[in-house]
Every structure is written in C-alpha cells, then in structure tokens.
C-alpha cells in the first residue's frame, strides 16, 4: 500500500530514529572523550555545545530574513503576481495554514524553497525560472511541497540536526587539537590503567564522529524531503502535479547560481551537482526515487 498517510507516518518515524541516532552518537563521543582524556575531555563539551547552539540558533531565529539575504530573494505583494498568490491561497485552504510571505529569486534555474522558524514567520520563495517553466498543476505541487515544510516545522528539525552535528564536529576538533599539543590526558586519572585498545578505539571514534554526524544530518534532511512530498499530496490529493513538476526539474540541467552549501538543503531540488556529492551526503533523495514514489501514489488513488 502506497498512500500519503502511510508515507507520512514512516518518514516521521524514521526522522525520530535518526534524531535518536544523533543523541546516541553524542553519548558515544562523550564516552570516548572520557576514556581518552579523562575529565578535561568533558570540560570542553559545554563550550562546543555553547558555540554550536549560538551559531545555529541565531540563524534559526532569523532564518526568514537571513536566508532571504543569502539567496537574494525579494518579497512580493499580491498585485505583483496575482496568479501565484491564487495558487498559494489554494494550498493554504487545503492545509489550513496561514498565508506565508512570498518571495522571488531572480534566477533562470527552476527551484523553490521555504524558510522561517514557524507558520507566522514562514516565507516561500520561487525562482523566476520555476514560474516560467511550470503550468498551474505543477506549480501547485511545488507550493504544496514548500507549505508542507512549513507545516512539518522543518526549519526547526534541521536546526536541531545542525546544532547536534555542529557540536560533535567542534568537540572532535577541540579534542584532536588537544591531543596534538600533548595536553589532555591527565595523569592523575585512573586512565593509565586503561587498556590500549580502548584508547585507540576512542581516538578513532573521536576522529570519525563528525563524518557520522554529517551522514545522519543528511539522512534527516532526505527524510524531511520525502515527508514533505507525502504531506504535499495530503494537501492537494494530486500526486500527478508534483510528479510532473519534479520531472520538469529533472529534465532541466540549469542549476541555481549560488552554490553555497550553507543553504543547499532548503531548495526543492538540490542546487549542488549530483555527481559531485555522493548519495550518502546529499540533502535530497534522488529525483528519480521521489518521482517513482509519487507515481506509486497515483496508481493508488483511493488512499
């Protein structure tokens, strides 16, 4: 059975599983730091968490304005594009969400994104390219996907993932530096009796943890994209519209000009070259996979 309710449930569960995985990774890193460095290793933990929190939550709180500046999106009024506003109002009625702010990015590549920390601060933005390339049904699918991000609070989810991954990266960085400068391992601790294998293992854990955290963060982002597709169908009950829209994106080879990885995850289609990023690190499921899932939903309309 492929229907949007089952898909929403499965993707929500997987997100929780992945977030739990992040939590476990944090505990493993703390344990490794304790094993290798003793108490001093854990002393830097609050600093790492503090920096990660400060950097990510600042951008989370101001995401609506920050992302707009980074992507060059300009807010427009209803009179600037009444048809686009009509389509967004339709999706608002279908979802029961408030009307978001609407913005345009001057870019010929077809793409769109949603940001803002909550429903009241939501912004959805479209490139001039996507508005030209898509018909009414396709655009409605794209809008539903972006409004689904708003409904699922994906700015919050990605902020949580970014904070955890950031804290792990900082912690690992601090501790490996401490190691090079010979500080760290306190001799008065009973760690001297530790067996060397445990020490080597904890060192490997500390070095590899940031990569593991990045993998988890990308996996969470991919789940949220799949969830947004399913939620979009729950709004429009029309998997065909979004499927055709994704096919338009697939057929188009132009890519949004800003290739900043900092905001790569927010677009409906990843602006990074798919060949340059391996599937494990990519923030979006492959378009072909998303199209296949939507096709399966079309084949089963009585969902």
């Amino acid at each position, binding site marked *: 059975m492929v229907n949007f309710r089952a898909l929403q449930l499965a993707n929500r569960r997987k997100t929780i599983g992945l977030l739990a995985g992040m939590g476990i990774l944090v505990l493993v890193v703390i344990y490794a730091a304790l094993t290798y460095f003793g108490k001093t290793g854990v002393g830097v933990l609050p600093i790492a968490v503090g920096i990660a929190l400060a950097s990510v939550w600042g951008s989370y709180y101001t995401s609506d304005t920050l992302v707009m500046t980074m992507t060059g999106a300009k807010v427009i009024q209803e009179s600037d594009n*009444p048809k686009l506003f009509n*389509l967004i109002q339709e*999706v608002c009625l*279908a979802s*029961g969400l408030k009307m978001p702010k609407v913005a345009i990015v001057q870019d010929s590549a077809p793409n769109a994104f949603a940001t803002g920390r909550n429903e009241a601060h939501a912004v959805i933005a479209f490139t001039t390219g996507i508005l030209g390339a898509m018909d*009414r049904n396709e655009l409605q699918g794209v809008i539903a996907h972006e409004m689904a991000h708003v409904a699922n609070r994906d700015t919050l989810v990605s902020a949580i993932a970014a904070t955890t991954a950031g804290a792990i990266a900082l912690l690992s960085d601090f501790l490996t530096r401490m190691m090079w400068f010979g500080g760290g391992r306190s001799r008065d601790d009973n760690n001297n009796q530790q067996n060397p294998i445990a020490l080597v293992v904890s060192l490997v854990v500390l070095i590899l943890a940031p990569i593991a955290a990045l993998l988890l963060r990308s996996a969470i982002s991919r789940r949220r994209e799949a969830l947004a597709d399913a939620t979009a169908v729950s709004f*429009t009950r029309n998997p065909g519209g979004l499927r055709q829209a994704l096919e338009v994106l697939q057929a188009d080879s132009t890519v949004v000009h800003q290739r900043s990885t900092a905001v790569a995850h927010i677009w409906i289609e990843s602006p990074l070259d798919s060949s340059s990023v391996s599937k494990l690190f990519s923030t979006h499921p492959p378009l072909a996979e998303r199209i296949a899932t939507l096709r399966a939903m079309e084949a089963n309309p009585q969902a």
Partner: protein
Amino acid sequence: MTTTWIVLGVIVLLVLFAISSYNRLIRLNVTVDEAFSQIEVQLKRRSDLIPNLVETVKGYAAHEKTALESVVAARAKATTASGVADVAAADGAMTQALRGLLAVSEAYPDLKASTNFLALQEELSTTENKVSFARQFYNDTVRSLNQTVKTFPSSLFAGAAKVGAREFYVVDDPANRQAPNVKF
C-alpha cells in the same frame, strides 16, 4: 506515605488528561466552524464572479438560454442556503450549472478568445480549486473531530465540552453517479 503520593500523582495525571481532552475537543470544534465559514467565503467569491461571467457569455452566445438561466437560478438559490446540507446542495447545483455553461462556451471560439473571458478563466479555475480545497479541509477536520468524539477515552469528555459529531459536507456530484456499473 508513599501510597498517598502515588494516588495523588495518578489523580494529577488524570486531571491533566481530562483538561487536554476537553481542550482538544473544543479546539477541533472551533476549527470545524472556521473551516465551514471558509467554504462559505469561497462560495461567495464564486457567486460574485457569476454576473460578469453571464454578461460575457451573453455577448457571444445569447441564445444558450438554458445554460445561462440555470447558472443564474443556482446563484439565487445559493445566496439563501444555510446549514451544512443546504449549502452543500446549493454548491453542488452551482458547480453543475457552471460546468454546463463552460461546456457550452466551448462551441464559441470568439467567446473563448475574448479578453474578458480569458481574464475570467484564471479567476474561475482558482475559485473552483479554492472551493474544493475548502470542502476537503472541512471534511478532514470533521473526520478528526468525529473520531475524537466517538472514540474512548476522549468520548467521555464530549458531553462536558458540549461538542458532538458534526455533519460532513457532501456535494452530490452526478459525474460520480454516472460511474460505470460493473456487473457480473
């Protein structure tokens, strides 16, 4: 001593549960009201488009009297409807009449090419979508309200919250009725 604390804890949990169930019922009931008024807003928008549409079609196809008259009649009926079943029935009649008028217009290329008609077309399609999404959202909220009202244990608080099951918005669509019957 410990038993008192346990009993106290259980009571606190029960009270918290009762409050949240009560609030959920009230909240859902309000959402259903809002969803229904949203349908009415969109139906009103559609009604407001009709005089303009009728005038435009008349200019090119004045002798399509039945189609034009049924739209005008449906509009008159829609303005007086109240209550979920009534509004839904009037809505269905209007959807039907509009579909008929648009089908008739297909035969008039001059009408279809006229600037007035082209301008109306976007308005008509967005309004048709808005009406149907508003219906869908209303029925979704009614479904979750009715589930909460009828299932245990939230059903225990429905009486206290004075919230009951609500009526679905069913539009009688002949297009569905004409679905082919398969006989074996």
